[in-house]
């Protein structure tokens, strides 16, 4: 299948430290890819390079055939490349309804309007209510973000991403910091995302990764050491080495 999103030979150094080393990944519509790797492997840096929050030293990012490497974060969002954040970035004194409404208005090009309240626009409110309802946030829609639980804030991150109707969605640890009892809700939210959307997810929760991903990429010390099916990843020697160090041999010997 033709690739929708392609990263070619991406490199980034911070001083002398190589954090992204010749990384290439491509995704097709409908992909469900998990990017995993030990702490410090460069996963979040990779996301920042792809979204334009950081500039790579070399390499290209293309989206739908267009090279977006030199574009800023906002222009990439316009072209359908949307991310969520590892640590929730929300507006503390706004409500969930305002967050999603702002995202919908922004997508439709109406966020610069200087008169009228969003609640007066039925088509906006219908969409906002539908998204909040899908993520179980409808009843909280008028509370301030700082008054709702962290797990609910994580769901709101996903809600905002959905409201932007992306073609490629990058989820940076969507379940980070969420109590075990609430991860099911987040999984359900991920499962309800449009089928033709390409999703790249970073996570540490291997259960979540294995249930969600159809493909796994493993990053270690900034380098891709595995790109394949989830069922093969645990048997891969290099992955075991990266995660377990010298204990990997001890494990296979046992």
């Amino acid at each position: 299948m033709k690739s929708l999103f392609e990263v070619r030979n991406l490199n980034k150094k911070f001083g002398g430290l190589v954090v992204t080393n010749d990384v290439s990944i491509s995704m097709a519509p409908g992909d469900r890819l998990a990017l995993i790797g030990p702490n410090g492997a460069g996963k979040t840096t990779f996301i920042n390079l792809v979204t334009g929050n950081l500039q790579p030293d070399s390499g290209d990012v293309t989206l739908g055939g267009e090279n977006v490497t030199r574009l800023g974060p906002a222009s990439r969002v316009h072209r359908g490349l949307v991310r969520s954040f590892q640590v929730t970035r929300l507006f503390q004194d706004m409500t969930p309804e305002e967050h999603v409404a702002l995202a919908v208005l922004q997508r439709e090009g109406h966020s610069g309007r200087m008169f009228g309240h969003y609640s007066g626009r039925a088509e906006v409110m219908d969409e906002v209510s539908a998204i909040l309802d899908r993520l179980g946030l409808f009843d909280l829609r008028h509370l301030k973000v700082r008054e709702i639980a962290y797990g609910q804030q994580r769901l709101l991150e996903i809600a905002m991403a959905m409201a932007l109707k992306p073609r490629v969605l990058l989820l940076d640890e969507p379940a980070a910091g969420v109590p075990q009892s609430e991860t099911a809700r987040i999984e359900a939210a991920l499962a309800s995302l449009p089928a033709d959307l390409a999703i790249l997810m970073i996570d540490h929760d291997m259960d979540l990764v294995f249930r969600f991903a159809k493909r796994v990429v493993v990053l270690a010390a900034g380098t891709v050491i595995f790109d394949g099916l989830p069922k093969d990843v645990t048997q891969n020697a290099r992955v075991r080495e990266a995660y377990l160090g010298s204990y990997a041999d001890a494990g296979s010997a046992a």
Partner: protein
Amino acid sequence: MVASLDRTIATPSFTRRMADRGVIGVLAILVAGLAGYLLMPNNLALLTQMIAVAMLVLSIDLVTGYCGVATLGHAALFGAGAYGAGIAAVHFGITDPVAMTAVGLLAGAAAGLVSGFVILRAHGLAQLVLSIAVIHLFHEAANKASGWTGGSDGLSAITPDAFFGAFEFDLWGVTAYAYGVILLAVVFLALQILVRSPFGMLARGVRQDQIRIAAMGASSHSVLLRMYVISGAVAGVGGALSAISTQVVGLDSLSFTLSAEALVMLVLGGTGSLYGAMIGTVVFMLFEDTLSAANPFHWLTIVGALLIAVVLFAPKGLYGSAAAFAGRVRRRPA
């Protein structure tokens, strides 16, 4: 299709809706305006100046309170409006007060565009320093261009026409005051609509997290620059009102001191709220007027003490803290 659509959306109370639409604010301005006229009939010039400065403080609130840009150079926008209206009257014979106000609005907006363009290049401390540079440059430009501005003597002989040929600008300043109250009500209503609009929401987002704004595909810089132009228009109207009512424009309207005092008034009243900006102006200027008459030597000391007290004990400002307190009382279960 979606269950939520059937659920009724709770309608906010009548008072809440009226407050949101600015009706209550406009009524409060008109009532306060009338009260000022009845209580201080011999001091209408002060009250009119208070209204002019309130517009400057409101305009600072737009960029500082709503968007998070710290500035100590905002009088540049106010002074541009004052000189714009004054020069229009003295050099171009535009003496209709409404036309002078319109010129002030445009001059303020233009000054907002220029100073926003400069100030928004930087962030944090550098931004604050740039704003100080801007006010000094404006001040010096007005000082040097004395052929147009009267330099340090000020621009005098501004004689606005009677309103619609009927209401003269009298010695007691009743006409200017009434015009000021109406202007403030109109400006407040416009700003109330602005801050509730999608753009106002976007601006609050810019203040809180610019990275998130970019991740939504919006440009913080464009939001800030647009807000600076609007802010300039508001300050410019205030400057024009000052020129019309005092019939003179001095370099003090383009001063660092006025910029700093206006910022203090905003902090005193509470940032991020139109009411806070207006209340801060009224309290500060009444305080200044009363205390400087009662004790010409130590009034600044008392103003300083008041400020420290507010910052320490009511960090959200007079209005902000009162609103937060009222919110807590309302929520407490009966």
